[in-house]
């Protein structure tokens, strides 16, 4: 999905997701996921700000051809970007944010939620508790929201 499309529907921030869709078209979901994580790590953990360089480096790291990075500058994959984004909104609804997670609901069908938003990555036991708790709440089709103010600084590692 795309933060640019969520925020204002404009195309300026679409480069990375265009490249991910190009990777998906080129090599399938698994490789696309690898590229998504490689881009995300550079931006969020390493704090890199030159997005063109981030995309080019991540594409190279994943062993993908330079044409995948070049797709970030074109509209070739915008239909795929929008389709993927719309699929997320269909699950989580309008007016939320990213990420949206689709998980098994009460009848086995997928239900979508924005979040869980965490200010640090839950690891080990905390990761398990978050997943178990999320599944239990999602088993109630009418569960809509649980929230507190974001006070802590977001830590990406």
């Amino acid at each position, binding site marked *: 999905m795309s933060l640019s499309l969520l925020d204002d529907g404009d195309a300026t921030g679409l480069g990375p997701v265009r490249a991910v869709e190009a990777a998906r078209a080129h090599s399938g979901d698994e490789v696309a996921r690898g590229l998504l994580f490689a881009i995300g790590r550079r931006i969020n953990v390493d704090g890199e700000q030159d997005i063109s360089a981030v995309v080019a480096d991540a594409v190279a790291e994943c062993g993908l051809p330079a044409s995948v990075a070049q797709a970030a500058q074109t509209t070739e994959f915008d239909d795929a970007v929008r389709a993927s984004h719309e699929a997320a909104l269909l699950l989580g609804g309008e007016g939320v944010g990213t990420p949206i997670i689709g998980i098994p609901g009460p009848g086995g069908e997928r239900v979508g939620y*924005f979040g869980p938003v965490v200010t640090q990555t839950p690891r080990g036991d905390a990761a398990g508790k978050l997943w178990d*708790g999320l599944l239990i709440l999602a088993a109630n089709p009418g569960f809509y929201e649980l929230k507190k103010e974001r006070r802590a600084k977001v830590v990406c590692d």
Partner: protein
Amino acid sequence: MRVTFWIDPMCPWAWITSRWMVEVEKVRDVTVDWNIMSLGVLNEHNDVSDDYKKLIARTWRPARVLCRARELHGDAVVFPLFSALGTRFHVGKRTDMEAVIAEALAEVGLEPELAQAADDPQYDDLVRQTHATAVAMSGAGVGTPVIALEGVDGAQVGFFGPIITPIPRGEDAGRLWDGFVLLAQVPGLVEIKRSRTVGPVVD
């Protein structure tokens, strides 16, 4: 486990969550300390529609009565008076505020003069003070209800919600509670949300 639950009696979503909490007390080892918060204070500086402003203005009245009743009679009156008010607002769909307050006071056995607090701004400070204790747990920019429970390392953690409809009953209520307790133990969890596709079903 001891839990603190803050409500504004006029919020239908807080009403549903409060009835869930009552169910949880039956099926889990949980005791609730009921407390008061205010949609009026929550929305004081928010840019809301004129219709919502009118609704918000009305919420001050039962909130003042609840706060004044607690000041005179202690914490134990909060739950029965809140429930007597909420049953009329939400289940009974009543909008005749004076009658609702008078009947609720009578049902709980409180003096009818307490109704005068509804229009007396000298009790606004009480409303603001109790509201601040909720916001201290959930942080600002959220809504009602707020629940505080034991989180990581035994420290109290507060959340707005869970927003849910219809009211989970019996073991369903217990299971939702179990999930909520798990989530409260996740350091840094701040939000899980989906767009509301149906309105509140209050009974």
